[in-house]
């Protein structure tokens, strides 16, 4: 990994909501093509961490750089920076008043000022790739959760981001729909996309991650390769966390 370019550099960030400290002195470097899965108990700051990376949350201390450019939510170039960091949310958040194709094409045309025809062509290709060619003229309400989430992924991809952030993207889905979304993400992993994934899908995390970050109480408690993390976690907190996913046989 050492040879790869550093895409994201997170240096000693702190995040507080009023008196509540959510992130405390978190540092992380993400290299090009790296897939980092972030796990941890609810309320450990995983989602907040991702939201800080594209400036949806303001950090109280520390620095975040994408390609050496600082991420500052109040800065003039924050929209330019967000174009380079794709994000997919738990609740899909497609635009309900726009068709699937419009949802996907809106930002490239409006924000990146790309040509409509070129964008549409790419949108159709991407939607086909995730198996949604038949839905291009539907509205979000006509789609299942899994389909909506696949559209949301395409909507992020069409911006050609350098990094993709996934915030518990399968958490709101019925079990049989989880797989179809994870398959799309596996496909992205094969393309060596740089991704930060917050998830509770441990089997998926193990399969896809280059590195697993275990976040607890606003700290990075473990930063390890997946095999090591899942087979022999170093800390008791990680052991305890992983044990909540296991069931003893009767």
């Amino acid at each position, binding site marked *: 990994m050492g040879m790869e370019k550093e895409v994201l550099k997170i240096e000693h960030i702190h995040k507080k909501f009023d008196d509540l400290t959510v992130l405390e002195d978190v540092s992380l470097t993400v290299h090009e093509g790296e897939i980092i899965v972030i796990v941890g108990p609810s309320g450990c700051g995983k989602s907040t961490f991702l939201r800080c990376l*594209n400036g*949806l949350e303001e950090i109280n201390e520390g620095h975040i750089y994408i390609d050496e450019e600082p991420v500052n939510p109040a800065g003039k170039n924050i*929209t*330019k920076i*967000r*174009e380079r*960091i*794709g*994000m997919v*949310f738990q*609740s899909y*958040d*497609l*635009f*309900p*008043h726009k068709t699937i194709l419009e949802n996907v094409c*809106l*930002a490239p045309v*409006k*924000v*990146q000022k790309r040509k409509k025809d070129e964008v549409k062509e790419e949108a159709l290709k991407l939607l086909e790739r995730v198996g949604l060619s038949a839905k291009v003229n539907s*509205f979000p*309400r*006509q789609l299942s959760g899994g389909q909506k989430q696949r559209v*949301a992924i395409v*909507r*992020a991809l069409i*911006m050609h981001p350098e990094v993709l952030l996934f915030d518990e993207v399968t958490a709101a889905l019925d079990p049989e729909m989880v797989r179809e979304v994870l398959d799309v993400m596996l496909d992205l992993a094969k393309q060596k996309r740089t991704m930060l994934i917050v998830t509770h899908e441990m089997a998926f995390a193990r399969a896809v991650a280059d590195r697993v970050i275990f976040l607890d109480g606003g700290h990075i408690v473990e930063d390890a390769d997946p095999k090591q993390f899942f087979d022999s976690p170093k800390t008791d907190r990680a052991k305890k966390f992983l044990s909540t996913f296991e069931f003893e046989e009767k």
Partner: protein
Amino acid sequence: MDTEVLRSYLPLFWEALILTVRIGWLGIALAFAIGIITSALLHFKVPVLSAVAKVYIELFRNTPLLVQLFFIYYGLPVLGFQVSAEGCGIAGLGLLGGSYMAETIRSGLDAVPLSQTESALALGMNKRQLFGSIVLPQAFSTSVPALVANVIFLLKETSVFSAISLMDLMFTAKDLIGLYYDTTEALFLLVIFYVIMLLPVSIAGSFIEKKARFRIFG
């Protein structure tokens, strides 16, 4: 009722209707423009300007249109501005309507989930794009019934225009009654013409409401 009288009044009422509709719609267009800008100031909590917006809304919602018209019609010339009666009517209706529209649209804006804003921001949209493409269209869809009610209310408010000598429907009816004492005929036509003016708005309103709802809620 004398049909001969009705027939002879018709052209006058027709002219009055055209004037009322013209001033009414220009005023309402102005009201929409003011309402959208004002609600945006409130929604984004723009410093200083959102306070100005609040003062404006309270001032114009809590004073009668008649009083506002008097202020514009008799007050502006004192300050050195010459405005035609028609211009005053449009401005008055626009300012009154703007305060109503602003509150209606703001309630619609507030009803759009924050997650919509966040996903638009995450795509690199600036505030103008976010407002114009994402938040405002959704706010409109939820506010359609209230907006249509505002439009109807404003068109009816044109009945006070006669106070600044605009020959609207109300003026025409009063004038004819004063001249010829055919009260029944004049009032009958007055009612009919208000219905002619407003019924299409109601019908179009429910049509737009259905369309807008379908787009978002199915």
